[in-house]
């Protein structure tokens, strides 16, 4: 049962092969049995899950037949879930029970999904290895001595280990696509504004975007259809009708123009990953796609630009965690300043503090123009690069990550080397365009991901290409040993 995709589960539930409650019990048992090896869940919401499963079964018995009715999922632990701890992987919110549901949570629940729990993540989504969580690191099911990627590392590990078929994630600089690549999953970062951010605890507001993670493009399409859409509660969400993501999956790829940016294949890329990516390109060519070399000349500035903008926004977004109204408060504060200082010093981890300090510095009087404004100008240039490139090609293809999953602790001493792991994913966040990572092979038993980028609001195109690729390859069906 645990090997099934969302689409297969829907068919089985529809044919009454098993009930949502049976499925939920099976997966809860798996989580209990296997997750201690991985640490992918922060909270398992057993009661809520069983209640939702029974409700889904009742709706089905009453004649409903939604594709997500009874579908078991997990939420990254920065989506607010009413009455359930929403920790953001941080000590400062360890005791925080959200008083409301995020729009994404609400919409998926309305579609009938069953929430098995809240998934581990880098603290406040800051990290590429899921090692900065207050709840401890998450391990990669493909090799438990290695990281699953981050920041949606709990979502990735839980799906890869077949504890759940799909989950929500968020992507600020690659936090859906990079862990998807490192754990053999399909993960989609939608266009900025496509999915509501209401109830999604902010890291960097102008870059954050929620999206689906699953094993197949088809499952991502099913989830996105329920998650996405305009939300009057989020001023940055866009009032544009959704495409029919499922219908788009079956479009043939004949005539598809793929751009290969030379900047994605330069120094720093593991040559074996480059080979795997080119093999994926060959598969797509067989399906009728044409390939063109292109250039995104400002990509080299993406990381410095991102590491000014994201921390700047974070330094402001995280100011509300001050020990006054909610979250962690230090013991016996001597006065107000002491309350602020110690609550934050004791409540936040090192990576969060590092980024708050960097961001505070970048926004300081006298530095704002040199850092923040300049970073925004670079951002505009990067966006322009994409706009120009998409006049010549339909999608841009390249590796999702420059390296395979690395060893736990390997990059802890050198944050910059970890930051460089986001080099291929960050540009999509800066430009606001959608991107998807799909499984494209293995090197030494570790998964390789290929990333596809498309123009604004063309999620359907990305899902279509990934789905067609998955019709002629079986990388995405492979499971890690022991799971």
């Amino acid at each position: 049962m645990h090997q099934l995709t969302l689409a297969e589960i829907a068919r089985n539930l529809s044919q009454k092969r098993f009930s949502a409650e049976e499925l939920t019990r099976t997966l809860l048992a798996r989580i209990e049995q296997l997750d201690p090896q991985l640490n992918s869940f922060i909270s398992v919401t057993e009661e809520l899950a069983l209640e939702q499963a029974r409700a889904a079964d009742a709706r089905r018995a009453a004649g409903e037949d939604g594709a997500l009715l009874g579908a078991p999922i997990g939420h990254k632990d920065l989506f607010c879930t009413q009455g359930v701890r929403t920790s953001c992987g941080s000590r400062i919110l360890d005791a925080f029970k959200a008083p409301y549901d995020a729009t994404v949570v609400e919409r998926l629940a309305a579609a009938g999904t069953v929430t098995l729990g809240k998934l581990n993540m880098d603290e406040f989504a800051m990290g590429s290895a899921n090692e900065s969580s207050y709840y401890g690191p998450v391990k990669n099911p493909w090799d438990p001595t290695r990281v699953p990627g981050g920041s949606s590392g709990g979502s990735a590990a839980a799906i890869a280990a077949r504890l759940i078929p799909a989950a929500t994630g968020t992507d600020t600089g690659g936090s859906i696509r990079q862990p998807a690549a490192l754990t053999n999953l399909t993960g989609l970062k939608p266009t900025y504004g496509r999915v509501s951010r209401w109830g999604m605890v902010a890291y960097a507001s102008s870059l954050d975007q929620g999206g689906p993670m699953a094993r197949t493009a088809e499952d991502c399409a099913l989830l996105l259809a329920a998650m996405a859409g305009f939300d009057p509660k989020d001023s940055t969400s866009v009032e544009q009708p959704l495409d029919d993501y499922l219908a788009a999956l079956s479009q043939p790829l004949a005539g598809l123009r793929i751009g290969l940016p030379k900047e994605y294949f330069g120094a720093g890329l593991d040559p074996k990953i480059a080979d795997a990516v080119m093999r994926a390109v060959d598969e797509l060519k067989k399906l009728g796609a044409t390939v063109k070399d292109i250039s995104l000349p400002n990509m080299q500035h993406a990381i410095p630009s991102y590491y000014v903008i994201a921390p700047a926004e974070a330094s402001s977004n995280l100011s509300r965690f001050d020990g006054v109204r909610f979250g962690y408060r230090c013991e016996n504060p001597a006065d107000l300043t002491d309350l602020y200082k110690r609550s934050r010093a004791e409540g936040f981890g090192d990576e969060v503090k590092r980024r708050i300090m960097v961001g505070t510095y970048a926004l300081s009087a006298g530095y704002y123009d040199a850092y923040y404004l300049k970073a925004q100008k670079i951002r505009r240039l990067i966006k322009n690069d994409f706009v120009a490139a998409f006049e010549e090609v339909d999608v841009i293809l390249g590796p999702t990550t420059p390296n395979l999953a690395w060893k736990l602790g390997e990059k802890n001493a050198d944050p910059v080397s970890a930051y460089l792991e986001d080099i291929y994913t960050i540009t999509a966040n800066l430009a606001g365009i959608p991107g998807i990572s799909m499984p494209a092979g293995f090197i030494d038993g570790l998964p390789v991901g290929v990333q596809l980028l498309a123009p604004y609001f063309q999620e359907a195109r990305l899902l279509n290409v990934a789905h067609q690729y998955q019709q002629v390859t079986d990388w995405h069906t492979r499971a890690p040993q022991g799971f």
Partner: protein
Amino acid sequence: MQWETVIGLEIHAQLATQSKIFSGSATTFGAEPNTQASLVDLGMPGTLPVLNAEAVRMACKFGLAIDAVIAEKNVFARKNYFYPDLPKGYQTSQMDHPIVGKGHLDITLEDGTTRRIGITRAHLEEDAGKSLHEDFHGMSGIDLNRAGTPLLEIVSEPDIRSAKEAVAYVKAIHALVRYLGICDGNMAEGSLRCDCNVSVRPKGQAEFGTRAEIKNVNSFRFIEKAINHEVQRQIELIEDGGKVVQETRLYDPNKDETRSMRSKEEANDYRYFPCPDLLPVVIEQRFLDEVRASLPELPVHKRERFEREFGLSAYDATVLAASRELADYFEAVQSACGDAKLSANWVMGELSSLLNKDNLDIQQSPVSAEQLGGMIQRIKDNTISGKIAKMVFEALAAGEGATADEIIEKKGLKQVTDTNAIEAMLDEVLAANAEQVEQYRASDEAKRGKMFGFFVGQAMKASKGKANPGQVNQLLKKKLEG
């Protein structure tokens, strides 16, 4: 040395919207603590702001009323600092791209002269909550009802040269926002608050002196006192060889002094940056045209019309146009009696002192504009004298009759204009004061003048004030001389 004072004011006006600037919570004053604070107002993780369109409309009204440029694109920015009643750790405000750009407002001083005060900008922002320091046994309470109330911060140019001018300017802003219906102007409840930037410089010097900012001065009277005190403090400091330091000061009305709150060195670096949760606001010309069409007659136009149409003095016109309600009242009195000058005198005189005495607004006046107008008509047609009118007015205020006519009738206050009756009465008065009459007739012209008043007084007393004063004067003169 001759000193010149330079003042710039920052006025925070709470906009009279139904709901908050970025959330749906109500903005009513005085509710139980934290009953008007939603998830957004509490700064809950994951919540997002949605701009209240009505706040934008109100800001545009103000901008058009001060002849300002309304920015086609304005941007919200975050002002970052920690304070317990600031739930998000930042205030959403506007920095580089305020909604209202450069404008100006004309103020009229007591001597009738007019000055134009430049307005640098006005921007939208959210109010903070309140910290409560009483009743918490060494702790502080936080009330977030006010958090998120829309504010329009109106920043003047350093064009103001005295405390009196500052008060006139604040009064003009106060009148304007109330005219526009965008702020209730209630300073006691904090709906309109004022920060005063004050500096002094030797007369004739071009550069400004170092300024001190006096925070949150919340009445017209305190503004005048706080500025005067601060000016005196700075002059004395400089004359004693000291230097003014740039700092924030607080005015203590009990001690009538300002004291230092924090120096420039201790000032926060607010780290302003554009708020990523809010899109830039684009104001279309069509929207502005619509707002412009909805503007009421503004105080300055009303004042000009009062001068032009009614021949009022600049000062009278300014006082009457200061509030929309007062102006409306005056116009209603005027149209009821047809005499603008008498209407102005009564509204600014007897009526104002009556309202002041009982601390009432013009809307709460016990004498309606129709009642007052009806009474003034009786002055004009000589039914009553001005003196009797005061009695009638008091009776109207006390609710002793529905109209002036009813009171005049009931109390028999009708003026006596019958020459025979007045002559008979005068004869009696002169007979009763025969000795004084003798003295009068024996005196020279200069002395007679003074004595004449005595006879007028006796005559009015005898007639219980009802005799027509003009006729009394005329007939009395004839009798005494004759």
